[in-house]
């Protein structure tokens, strides 16, 4: 599980936007959302004026009841769904409705995203799914399938699978994996290219307690040793309290809580889930 803590070989391009050393301190936040609003069709506002600033190297836990808008917020921040109002600046790219194609390409190169429903390609192997995670890195067709991948990428993928403890199921078809195994493949896919920013939507939901803790520790090391920024949602208080720097809570699409994690207790978070 150590290799991922070195700068990924796939990401070592010196001209690239990922200097191994932390960026000049106190720079502009890595992500800032300004009164972001989102409604689907003519439904109610799912995000309702969300304002947020996340700095490089932070680990932010995003809490909220079911349906509070966590997944929607993560999607909106990276431009996977167009926002209805407000503006987002992320990894230096600023957009209002949706990022332009160029902005998308630039920002997503540096991004990892773990989806709540995993979003694995069922008919290919776990390893191929992980290899696919490096698609933004300019490998072209060589990131389509594990059998096409250059050795370095394959190794990185295997390494990522090892990091999530699933190297022994690398060749299994993704749709034969158990819930937790599938979740791990999704995580491995999101970290294989050493992203600067990792969005993870309930990355530990299907994991057993030990595996969940491993993932939290992995996240911590990514943040500490390499100033990678982490934003994850979770319903596990302990994962938020013990492994995040900051806790942001949503309630019905509004930010109702934004504080450092230290010195908070479960009690302080309970109101988030109350009627």
């Amino acid at each position, binding site marked *: 599980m150590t290799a991922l803590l070195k700068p990924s070989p796939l990401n070592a391009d010196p001209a690239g936007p990922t200097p191994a050393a932390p960026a000049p301190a106190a720079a502009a936040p890595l992500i800032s959302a300004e009164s972001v609003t989102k409604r689907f069709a003519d439904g109610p506002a799912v995000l309702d004026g969300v304002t947020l600033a996340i700095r490089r190297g932070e680990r932010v836990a995003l809490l909220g009841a079911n349906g509070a808008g966590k997944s929607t917020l993560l999607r909106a921040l990276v431009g996977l769904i167009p926002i209805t109002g407000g503006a987002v600046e992320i990894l230096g790219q600023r957009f209002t409705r949706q990022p332009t194609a160029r902005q998308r390409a630039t920002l997503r190169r540096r991004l990892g995203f773990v989806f709540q429903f995993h979003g694995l390609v069922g008919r290919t192997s776990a390893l191929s799914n992980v290899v*696919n995670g490096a698609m933004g890195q300019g490998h072209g067709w060589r990131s*389509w399938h594990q059998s096409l991948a250059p050795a370095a990428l394959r190794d990185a993928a295997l390494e990522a699978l090892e990091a999530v403890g699933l190297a022994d199921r690398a060749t299994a078809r993704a749709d034969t994996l158990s819930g937790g195994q599938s979740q791990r493949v999704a995580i491995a896919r999101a970290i294989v290219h050493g992203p600067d920013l990792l969005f993870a939507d309930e990355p530990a939901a299907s994991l057993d307690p030990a595996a969940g803790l491993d993932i939290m520790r992995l996240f911590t090391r990514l943040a500490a040793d390499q100033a990678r920024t982490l934003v994850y949602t979770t319903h596990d208080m302990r994962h938020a309290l013990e492994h995040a720097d900051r806790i942001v809570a949503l309630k019905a699409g509004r930010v109702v809580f934004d504080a450092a994690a230290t010195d908070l207790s479960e009690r302080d978070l309970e109101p988030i889930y109350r009627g």
Partner: protein
Amino acid sequence: MADTTSSRPPTSGPAASRPGARDIARWPRLTPLRFTLLVAAGAVLLASIGDVAPSADRLIGAVPRMGSLLERMLPPETDPAFLGRMGLRLVETLQIALVGTLFGILLSFPLAWLSAAGLSPLGRLRWLARGTVSLFRTVPDLVWALFFVSAVGLGAIAGTLTIIVDTAGFCGRFFAEAMEDSDKRPREALEAVGARKLDILASAVVPQCMPSFVNTSLFALELSVRSSVVLGIVGAGGIGQELKSAFELFQYPKASAIILAIFVIVLVMEQLTDWLRRRLG
């Protein structure tokens, strides 16, 4: 939610005690426009059915007549010389169909991608690709045959080209449909890490669509083998021509022998489709 029905008069029945139960429409709301459209569509359909659908009593009493036709077709011709020639034609047809379908599939794959909603790199211009595929289908075989014969002359090559166009017109549409209907979640997941449209196609869409591609492709091959006209019109012979002549000269037993042979091929292809699809899971 708890209050949404509070201003309404109380109603009886089990649902009344639970607010909300009455709020959920059983059917989509019937606006005047929808109603008008529905009635209009119904009227057109009924009128058409009245005009052209078979009535029950005409169908009764038809059975014996159909039986006599069947009798004249059976038993199929078994003259060895004829069977030999038929076998030869079948092989010819299969060869041309195989090559034509293969190239047709290769051609329709990019066309399908370019015309698939949500996947096409062309954006709004994807209708250009769709239009091309539709045009391939709309222009009749005979016209394609005219073009290709005047381009490359009579024979198997013109037949192959015609089959290529036919296949592209068919597969282009069904491949695109399969691509569009593929699960959106893996596509989104790859999009999120900066995959290009082509990457998403190759990694998230194609693996999912493989069973459907197999089905469509083998159907296209079957179609090419069955298609009784294409090869005949360009003078490339083929089993279709043989079948047509048998009918025009009223040699029904020969015709039924040919149909049986094609049926066997179709069944074999069905088995192949099944097997391939099972392998792909």
